[in-house]
């Protein structure tokens, strides 16, 4: 039990890091990176909250859900990165207009 429980605070902290990044970072790429960090934290919680089987093998359902989640996250990340690259090519910007305005105000 104590071997597993260390991943609960770790996962929660990763969720916090990712949440902060998604809310506060102004660069699009950094927001996408934060999205991935937050997702990793959630997956970590998912597996850490499942009791392992008798032979130390993790819950196969949880494993399958995480693999599905990783693939979906990569699809979203790839779409975001491509949109950001094209946006940068067209406008020369790496941040969205609202975030730029907010950074200037501060």
């Amino acid at each position, binding site marked *: 039990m104590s071997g597993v429980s260390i991943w609960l605070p770790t996962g929660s902290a990763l969720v916090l890091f990712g949440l902060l990044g*998604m809310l506060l970072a102004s660069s699009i790429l950094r927001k996408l990176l934060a999205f991935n960090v937050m997702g990793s934290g959630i997956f970590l919680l998912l597996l850490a909250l499942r009791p392992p089987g008798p032979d130390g093998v993790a819950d196969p*359902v949880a494993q399958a859900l995480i693999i599905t989640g990783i693939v979906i996250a990569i699809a979203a990340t790839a*779409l975001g990165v491509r949109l950001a690259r094209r946006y940068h090519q067209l406008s020369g910007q790496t941040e969205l207009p609202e975030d730029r305005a907010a950074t200037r105000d501060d």
Partner: protein
Amino acid sequence: MTEAMTEAMTEAMTEALLLPLLVLWPLVVGLGVYALPERASAALQVLGTLVLAGLIATVFATMLASPEPLRAALGGWAAPLGIELVADRLAQAMLLLTLLVYAAVLLYAQAYFAHGSEAAQRFWPLAWMLWAGLNAGYLSADLFNLYVALELVGLAAVGLTALTGQSTALAAALRYLLAALLASNLFLLAVVLLYAATGSLALDSIGAHLAAVGTTPWYAKLALALVLVSLALKTALAPLHFWLPAAHGNAVTPVSALLSALVLKVSLLIFLRLWLEFAPALDLAALGLLLALLGLLASVWGSVLALTQRKIKMLIAYSSVAQVGYLFLPFAWLLPGGLGAALALEATVLHLLAHALAKAAMFLAAGVLVLSAGRDDLVSLRGAVAREPLAFAALTLAGVSLIGLPPSLGFAAKWQMMQAALLADQWPWLLWLLGGTLLTAAYVFRVLRLAFLPTPEAFEARAPLPQRLSLCALALALLAALGGFGAAALSDWLAAETLLWPGSGA
């Protein structure tokens, strides 16, 4: 004997394939439109729509025979192990709505996109994949599967927003994507908490488990709060609406119609389902009141902003922010044992249908006027009565439903809301409903007034547009404006199945 056998066979096939086909068939058409040469595309899509209409008709026919919802266990694995699809009357209403809106939008888009345009080549596959995602969201009874369906809807919607590839569209799509991804992660977090606490992903067994625990653990509330924030973000409930106007206002017209009519609604429907599932286990009265107050804020704030817009599509987009607010009002009464719960549920569904039809019609009609004027600000409306009378008629009829004048579907929805409020003895809400109606009327008349002004000369030289564009808008607008006549029947039909909890009623 052979006849009986064939019938049994057909029945078994129906059982096995009907509901899955509602999701798989649009995917097949989407794949075909994507991978096959362009000349096959139109025929394939007509065929695809007809087949889907047939499937949905079969679902309705089967449902008429029995009051129980249709169920299908995918792969033959029953629920806690496998994933089940459930077509209750809520899902069926959504399936039908989606079919109607899609039929109009696809016909419209055929005429809207120039032949061989690159944007169109991306529009068709994405629109069909989006349809698959929407149907998957209506039918799924599995929490994680709902997450996957929401992602399919979300990414397809973002791709459609970015369709033109111009800088403003890309910025709007990125903003939309980042908001949707945050919402997805919050939803996923809720899935994780519920799965850990109950050991199951199937909606009904999670609900049953939470209700059976007796004193429901407090983290179930946290999970519901996460779901709430996530889906409020996806449904653009103020103050989480920041991504909507740019995305809906800058997308090409057929996309704006799909996004506002359907994409906003699927997340609301999922929220409604989870609400109904969790309400017996948790005390949701305070949360319902909070939602209704946020809805109040949204409806005022969105209307005020709509009044200040210069571009016609942005005005309609802000109107969505306001109308979404009304969708959340009935949650104040949607409580087990609460008076008016049944009315509140009907009001939500009616308003959802009314807004979907009216808003799609409005965007389609506005698209016609923008095309015919060659500019996208409110000036493009001048002389609309003379230039595009059919589009103007569609805009007016949709406006009638949006304001909530009889005999529109919008009126029926607001009437139900008032009844629910009176039944629950909470008459102050009536003031809001009346005030909101006035605000809506203000921005609708702001649009309609311009249409009677003389056409600026600059517009005259433009080539006439195909009638089909206006007709598609008009068809949806007529459904919205005259739907009030069918509202009673619709309510009865919904009430024939126990969607609410046993023991709670009017």
